């Protein structure tokens, strides 16, 4: 990854620019930037927060050095908007499960969205939406992704720091199991018989859920090269209900390819 500030001097006037864009989402991932309470003012000193509607009224025109994209694509208009944003951003980074895999709203991808509209809205013809909720990378090339539902604010600070000084962000690519071991949490899958997605989920959260006596439900999405089907088969053999496993895998990152394939395979059995 090249240094984003290469083209700039160290003068404050030429600080690297960051823009934050929102698509279908809950705002929680962009809120993570404001949740970096100890770092926010320092970040604002080092980078130009050029476009961030949730936090500031002033907007600077692009192009931008870094675009942080939250949310999934669910309308024709948004599918067009992300293409323009891609043109405006040197580095495009997706933040969170919606942007990286379609989010919880991607459950519609297994349903009839017309029926959803009729159920929620009295006047369905006012609603304009696509039949699917899809990841940003399904529409434009993405340079880097931060996982999580929500993202970890420390990873966000690390990402911005790395881009400013011109190195690759350090984000773990091992599974949640490693974080559990480091934390000293007794394995809930082995010791308590809970069906846990930790073995196939990318680390980053700090393995919070098992530390609170519950299963990992895959907020950070599938780790690379995992066999989700095999894990589900193991849990099923141990007595877990198949429809429970479908729901477990099919949630916040349910439309990520590895999770999708596993839940579809369970249903087809």
């Amino acid at each position: 990854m090249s240094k984003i500030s290469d083209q700039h001097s160290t003068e404050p006037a030429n600080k690297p620019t960051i823009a934050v864009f929102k698509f279908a989402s809950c705002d929680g991932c962009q809120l993570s930037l404001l949740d970096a309470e100890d770092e926010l003012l320092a970040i604002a000193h080092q980078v130009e927060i050029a476009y961030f509607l949730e936090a500031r009224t002033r907007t600077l025109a692009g192009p931008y050095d870094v675009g942080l994209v939250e949310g999934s694509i669910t309308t024709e208009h948004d599918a067009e908007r992300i293409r323009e944003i891609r043109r405006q951003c040197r580095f495009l980074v997706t933040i969170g499960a919606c942007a990286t895999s379609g989010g919880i709203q991607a459950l519609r991808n297994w349903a009839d969205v017309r029926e959803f509209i009729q159920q929620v809205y009295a006047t369905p013809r006012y609603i304009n939406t696509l039949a699917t909720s899809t990841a940003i990378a399904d529409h434009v090339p993405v340079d880097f992704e931060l996982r999580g539902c929500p993202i970890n604010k420390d990873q966000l600070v690390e990402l911005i720091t790395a881009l400013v000084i011109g190195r690759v962000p350090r984000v773990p690519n091992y599974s949640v199991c490693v974080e559990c071991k480091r934390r000293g949490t007794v394995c809930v899958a082995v010791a308590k018989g809970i069906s846990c997605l930790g073995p196939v989920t990318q680390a980053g959260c700090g393995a919070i859920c098992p530390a609170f006596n519950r299963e990992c439900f895959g907020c950070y999405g599938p780790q690379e090269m995992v066999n989700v089907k095999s894990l589900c088969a193991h849990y099923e053999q141990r007595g877990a209900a198949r429809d429970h496993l479908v729901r477990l895998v099919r949630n916040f990152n349910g439309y990520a390819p590895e999770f999708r394939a596993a839940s579809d395979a369970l249903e087809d059995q």
Partner: protein
Amino acid sequence: MGDKRQFEVKALTRVEGEGRLYVRVAGNTVEHVELNIFEPPRFFESLLRGREIREVPDITARICGICPVAYQMTACHALEKALGLTMTPEIRLLRRLLYCGEWIESHALHMHLLHAPDFLGYESGISMAADHREVVERGLRMKKIGNDLLAILGGRAIHPINVTVGGFYRAPRRSELKRLLPELEWGLAAAVETVRLVAGFDFPPFEQPYDFVSLHHEREYPLNEGRVVSSSGLDIQVDEYESNFEERHLPQSTALHSVMLPDAKPYLVGPLARVNLCLEQLPPTARREAETCGIAWPSQNNFHSIVARGIEVIAAFEEAVQIVGQYQVEPAISRIEYTPRAGEGCHATEAPRGLIYHRYRIGDDGLIAEAKIVPPTSQNQGQIEDDLRQFVPSVLQYDDAEATRRCEHLIRNYDPCISCATHFLTLTIDRQGE
């Protein structure tokens, strides 16, 4: 004739979510006001069907990253009613503590970083920090304490994982909570300072005949429980909510507008409604500051909402100090067990932005068969439009940029959360004929 004007603001900022406002005026007459929420719908009520009871607090949290606890709490209470569960006093207190954390982080963010800049003349909290660094830093530290409280109780600040139907997966550790006590005590003093600061702001003289709606509880400031009351005399159980309020779908919006029946009138929920209706239930420090801040309650001016928000931050810190101070042993039971079964239940709690209502029906298979969710911002939407109809004539003397800035300021009084309401704003003021 000849003085029809049209303003345009493409995107309303410093709000959560995205939307647009369209205003058309002729002379001093506002011909049309339309709040256009253009965030794409996410269909939570539909995608909850067929999910497990225990998944509901995890899924509904994702409606809003700023107030996930409001969704989790409301869902849990509603489902517990459907299942006939009664919480222990210990769980009840810990839930109040969790909600205090959310009020603190959400209110501190809005007051210091999003709303104070309107009063002090900045485009953002970031710019404001150049001249008022101590105010912004105080707000950030208060917000951080709220988030720390959420993380200790909920596992993390955004989308807590420790909230479940029946209680908590694990009780918070005494040592973790006690460690936060000095910060909570600092926060209480800091919140008093902030109230004294914001109460001295210059408030536009904009009094409206609002009908305020909030929960009301005899013995405590409303968070998790209470009757639904209004300043016009409504006083009902939560299960009568749907026969007194109705959601309507308007063309310009992916959010549903709520109105109060039988007259289909708009109403106001949120901090100003709560302080006006529940002043007597405020804990002592919050009450003292409310009574000495120079504003007479009940106030009919929603620009005072920033002060009401501050009073609630005091109340939240005050209650948190008390609950944490008294937390001696981790409760033996952190979660009431249940067997999924058919049933129906509804509940309302007080989100930072106002009353929130959920109803669920559980099917014979123990899965969610039906869900109804009414967030605070969709309830305030009609009132925001009404406010603008009244307010716009007073800003027509200004150029478009200034008129727009003042309208946005008014909208921010509501701390609207458009992601919640399905979604928020771009402002267009159409001065016809110019």
